[in-house]
């Protein structure tokens, strides 16, 4: 089977997304931040609208919107009047709706809304790939630098603080990192589905890992397999690419769970 160029670009770009979303997704799972990821992703559409409005690169607009929302949430974490999931709910859907409303005002523009919401892996360009690999490498280095501290904070915040880790810096820098990765990966998998690529491979990897590092590596591998499977399925049956990747990831999760159950019962 000879692949067209666009398929190679999709596979290469998707692999890049998987490598960074796997380890990052583990922390989202460990720290129970799925809803936070979702909220940041929803604000990406506002970034798209702002990008069009100010005539700047859409990806840059998305990056600014996502990171701003993450930092805003980090600042709001201290207050106690509303629970954090309420605040996330307010911000997520407000950002999404403001984005949609703003785009609807720009009548002259033909915006591929579905493409932004669900992603379009097969339309990935060389510059998208450069963006992903450049940003992804930066994100991996960033995560590598805070890895030990972030893990200590995840295990026990006070213990980490008592042993000299500046918890606030680590936490905020992690939130900004999530926003950064969501912004660079959005084109592939879409605003509504990006969180699933962070969470499902990580969840699937749990059963087969003994240490946090193993789980991160396995999550990256499972993410890569999901991207591969999803793109192949999308070509074979002409299904939308983003949802196909998520279905593949979910399939992997289910198979992994069944294998885990079988192995677990054999060990007993």
């Amino acid at each position, binding site marked *: 089977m000879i692949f067209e160029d666009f398929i190679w670009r999709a596979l290469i770009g998707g692999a890049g997304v998987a490598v960074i979303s796997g380890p990052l997704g583990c922390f989202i799972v460990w720290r129970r931040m799925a809803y936070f990821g979702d909220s940041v992703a929803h604000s990406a559409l506002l970034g798209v609208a702002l990008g069009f409005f100010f005539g700047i690169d859409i990806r840059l607009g998305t990056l600014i919107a996502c990171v701003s929302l993450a930092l805003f949430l980090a600042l709001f974490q201290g207050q106690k009047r509303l629970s954090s999931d309420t605040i996330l709910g307010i911000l997520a859907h407000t950002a999404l709706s403001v984005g949609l409303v703003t785009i609807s005002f720009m009548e002259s523009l033909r915006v591929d809304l579905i493409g932004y919401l669900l992603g379009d892996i097969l339309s990935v360009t060389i510059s998208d790939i450069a963006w992903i690999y450049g940003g992804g490498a930066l994100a991996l280095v960033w995560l590598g630098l805070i890895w030990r501290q972030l*893990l200590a904070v995840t*295990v026990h915040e006070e213990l980490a603080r*008592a042993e000299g880790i500046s918890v606030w810096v680590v936490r905020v820098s992690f939130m900004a990192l999530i926003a950064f990765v969501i912004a660079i990966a959005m084109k592939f998998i879409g605003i509504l589905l990006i969180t699933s690529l962070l969470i499902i491979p990580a969840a699937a990897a*749990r059963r087969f890992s003994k240490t946090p590092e193993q789980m991160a590596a396995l999550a990256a591998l499972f993410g890569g397999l999901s991207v591969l499977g999803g793109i192949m399925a999308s070509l074979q049956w002409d299904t939308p690419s983003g949802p196909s990747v998520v279905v593949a990831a979910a399939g992997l999760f289910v198979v992994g769970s069944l294998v885990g159950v079988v192995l677990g019962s054999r060990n007993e």
Partner: protein
Amino acid sequence: MSKSDENLIGEGTLTGEGLLVGEGYLIEGRNIHHAFGKTSVLSNIDISVSPGEIVTLIGPNGAGKTTLVRVLLGLIRSDTGEIIKRPGLVVGYLPQQLSIDPVLPMTVRRLLRLTNRPTTTEMLEALSETGAAHLIDQAVQELSGGELQRVLLARALARRPDLLVLDEPIQGIDISGQTKLYELIAQIRSRRGCGVLMISHDLHIVMASTDRVVCINGHLCCSGHPETVREHPEYMALFAPREAESLAVYTHSHDHSHDLAGHVVPIEERGNSDHDHGHPEHDHSGHDHADHDSPERDITPRGETS
């Protein structure tokens, strides 16, 4: 610390206060006040730990024990007062109820390398010291409460701490395990010469392995050698009646309880006892009190009350 100190401690002849005078404190808190909102939690508390000394902080629930430890560790800032740490002080901390989410895969080996990087030999050394070397490749989530505490203690030891801080280390451990854990902590102190600050709510079990007891209830009630504190009216007021009350609740048919020394203490009816010993800070109304002025008084037989 020298070998001769170990021997002295082993023989139980040395109280913490007599130990190593002149070496200075590992950590000292002076005149600590702290309030959450308008509720004062700690007022005017002085506390210190010397090298090689085990200091046990006791007090009823809500007395501010954990808050005081958090202030000393610098986890929260007290409203007033100062914390003086010996320069370069390495603290090993065992927080209250550390449990690791099952979704986070974690082996004992990995947990020991969480905030510093001991070698395998160093890890095994620390784990052997707490009797947990065989657990090194176990998943943390599969450990029993006692095993987890031993592993966490080893984790703190692997940091080579000058000061161990333990917040209710015996939670979730059965009585015999509790005594063993306290013995272990005393051994570690003797071997390493580190200072130990721990929180307990039960003086009875911790007594044998502590040099000095600091009893707080928002304010400093009393402090000193465990035997002295046990006889102190403020300590009696805080603990003796509560224990009597809880025993009465669970046994129903008994009309007396035992104080910490095992002496029989009759249970007074609510509001019957009337005492005041010059502490306007706390309110004695609404508690049952065994008469703390005569802890060793005779049994007062009464009919079944339930």
